[in-house]
């Protein structure tokens, strides 16, 4: 099957911007795009299935089933600016072959829909959690775009890589002469004691704020602010628990004081 597409409607859009946020290691991308889909009330127009996706289906809490898929939504900007195409999903292709194939498929659609600018989102991992507002780093496909991101407080990445689908899509956009901006949210990779990833909503909020400034779109941020505060509190508790655990361990590992005798 490779790629199977279910087209629901054929939207005609005005100079659309494509914003991509498939789930990746930090989940910031998906967090941002799903928030936009919800708050803008964007309309689903295409579902993408691929044999490069994980070979299972998801049984949801309500007992119904969901296939692994990517989804394309559109939003008409009645304020006069560009319309949006939003890419999200519950997975990304698992192999480089699959990532190239799905990314190329999406870029062909983007070209056909008249997309001139692509935004992808990813995570920038740091060692230590900061109490400051997470930084947003950026990479652009065209030097002309540098000024556009820097003026909104984005720090351009000097070197490194953007792994996975969200990086590749943006790189392939360059080959097609579509301007691309990748925004990376600074985050620490936190997992719960059971190994579950903690999504850093605070980092997602920082990226979202920058994205909205660059695109000139207005979205109510109160909900993500609330979620970010909850995450921050959760992370603080994890750090406290970690600190306590380390103290306990260090106590048990401290060697007993030895008594020395002169003989």
């Amino acid at each position, binding site marked *: *099957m490779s790629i199977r597409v279910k087209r629901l409607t054929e939207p005609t859009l005005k100079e659309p911007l494509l914003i991509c946020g498939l789930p990746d290691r930090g989940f910031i991308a998906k967090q941002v795009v799903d928030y936009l889909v919800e708050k803008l009330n964007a309309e689903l127009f295409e579902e993408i299935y691929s044999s490069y996706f994980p070979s299972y289906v998801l049984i949801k809490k309500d007992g119904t*089933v969901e296939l692994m898929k990517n989804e394309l939504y559109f939003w008409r900007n009645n304020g006069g600016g560009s319309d949006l195409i939003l890419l999200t999903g519950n997975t990304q292709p698992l192999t480089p072959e699959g990532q190239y194939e799905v990314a190329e498929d999406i870029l062909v659609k983007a070209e056909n829909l008249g997309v001139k600018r692509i935004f992808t989102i990813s995570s920038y991992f740091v060692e230590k959690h900061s109490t400051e507002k997470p930084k947003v780093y950026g990479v652009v496909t065209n030097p002309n775009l540098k000024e556009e991101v820097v003026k909104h407080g984005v720090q351009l990445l000097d070197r490194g890589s953007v792994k996975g689908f969200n990086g590749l899509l943006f790189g392939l956009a360059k080959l097609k002469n579509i301007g691309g901006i990748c925004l990376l949210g600074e985050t620490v990779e936190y997992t719960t004691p059971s190994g579950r990833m903690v999504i850093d909503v605070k980092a997602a909020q920082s990226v979202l704020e920058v994205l909205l400034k660059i695109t000139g779109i207005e979205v109510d941020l109160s909900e993500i602010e609330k979620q970010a505060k909850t995450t921050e509190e959760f992370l603080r508790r994890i750090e406290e628990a970690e600190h306590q655990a380390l103290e306990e361990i260090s106590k048990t590992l401290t060697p007993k004081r030895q008594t020395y005798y002169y003989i």
Partner: protein
Amino acid sequence: MKTRVWLKFFDKPRLEKPLAIVGSPGLRSVGKLALKYLVKEVKAKRFAELYSSSFPILYDTKPSYATMPRFPGIAGVKVKNGGAFIPRVRFYFSVSPELIMVRGYHANFEGQYEVAEKVVEVLEEFKVKRMFVLAGYGWDGPQVCCAASNHQLIEEMKKFGLTTGYVGPFMGFSGLVFGLGVLKNIEGICLFGKTQPHPEKPEFPDPEAGKNVFRKLREILSLNNGNRFS
């Protein structure tokens, strides 16, 4: 991906409105066992087999259905009583009740979707509108719980004392046939039999769980002509 999938028909049964029943050797082989009991109960006949270049006989992943890219396994034949058998998906039918039964086989990552898609094509060819997918689950909960392609079906299953219970991934052959069937407008109901996971041998058979699923299916299908496991 370059997966070859091909079918061999031994018979072309004429069925009006068959239901499909799908089971494969997943968690503790619950689905495979339940299907095996059904095949015996309704005296089903084999009418087709599906083969694939993505069917290993030795898997690189454990359990076999947790497929990963770059872990293709090793191809070969299975030997039973001196005979050799290429790994295959087996299709059975019965006329009364009108059923098509699919005993699945797990492909590697390269072929999972292609195989499931081909199976769904066969079901479409026989105008199947509803399928039951049998499998095991390793959580706390009822002896048999259900999932379905829509809420009406979940409601319908309540009259058989079934509730939802399992939440999470449904891996491998049966999960994908279920999911891709839904895409082709074949409504699906999963019956999950509670079992105890066996970390060392994930597919080690749990006949009791298989019988529980079979009993529930028999009740739903109103099969009262036998006394097996009653």
